[in-house]
């Protein structure tokens, strides 16, 4: 009887020890898993932060480039506009001088050009009607 009780006690103690070891092992695994998750989370956070920084940097650089390009284009357009205005002013002066020197010829040339354009328009209209 005593042997049986002792044997049972020993077996119980052994089972309890094994269970305790299992709990310790599970706790260690849980800790390791938790650590892994934290490491992963930090890694992902770091990657996201770097990506955001890189994107922000690229956006800033792109904006700077666009601003420079806009400035260049605006300056070029302003120069072109000034040139065209000067050229058209010169052309207008030349035409005015020519007309004042040759009024009859200028009027006839203008009327002739208008006449030809009108003739072409009339022809185009009659072709459309056909």
């Amino acid at each position, binding site marked *: 009887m005593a042997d049986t009780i002792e044997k049972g006690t020993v077996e119980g103690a052994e089972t309890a020890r094994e269970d305790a070891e299992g709990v310790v092992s599970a706790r260690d695994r849980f800790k390791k898993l938790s650590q892994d998750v934290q490491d992963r989370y930090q890694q992902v956070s770091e990657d996201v932060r770097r990506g955001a920084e890189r994107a922000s940097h690229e956006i800033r650089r792109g904006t700077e480039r666009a601003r420079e390009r806009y400035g260049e284009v605006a300056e070029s357009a302003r120069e072109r506009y000034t040139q065209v205005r000067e050229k058209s002013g010169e052309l*207008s002066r030349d*035409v*005015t001088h020519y*007309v*004042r*020197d*040759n*009024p*009859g*010829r*200028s*009027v*006839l040339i*203008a*009327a*002739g*050009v*208008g*006449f*030809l*354009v*009108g*003739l*072409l*328009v*009339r022809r185009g209209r009659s072709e459309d009607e056909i």
Partner: protein
Amino acid sequence: MEDFVDDGAHRPSTIDDFLDEILPEELEWDRLVRSYPLPALALAALGGFFLGISHGPGIVSAVTGYMGAQISRNVSQVLGQDIG
């Protein structure tokens, strides 16, 4: 628009005489054209345009016929002189 001052340097040409003939006498087209050159050109072009649209083919055929008649008359004169 600045008013043109005739300095007397302009000499009337055949075209000016032609325009004097076809335009009304009281219209001083010469002075108007020289005073307002660009509007005058625009007006002339507009007039020509409407003339081309309304009577273009008739005017072209009339001018062509006149030129053909002139050419044939000149050729006849030349040939007549050669034959004579």
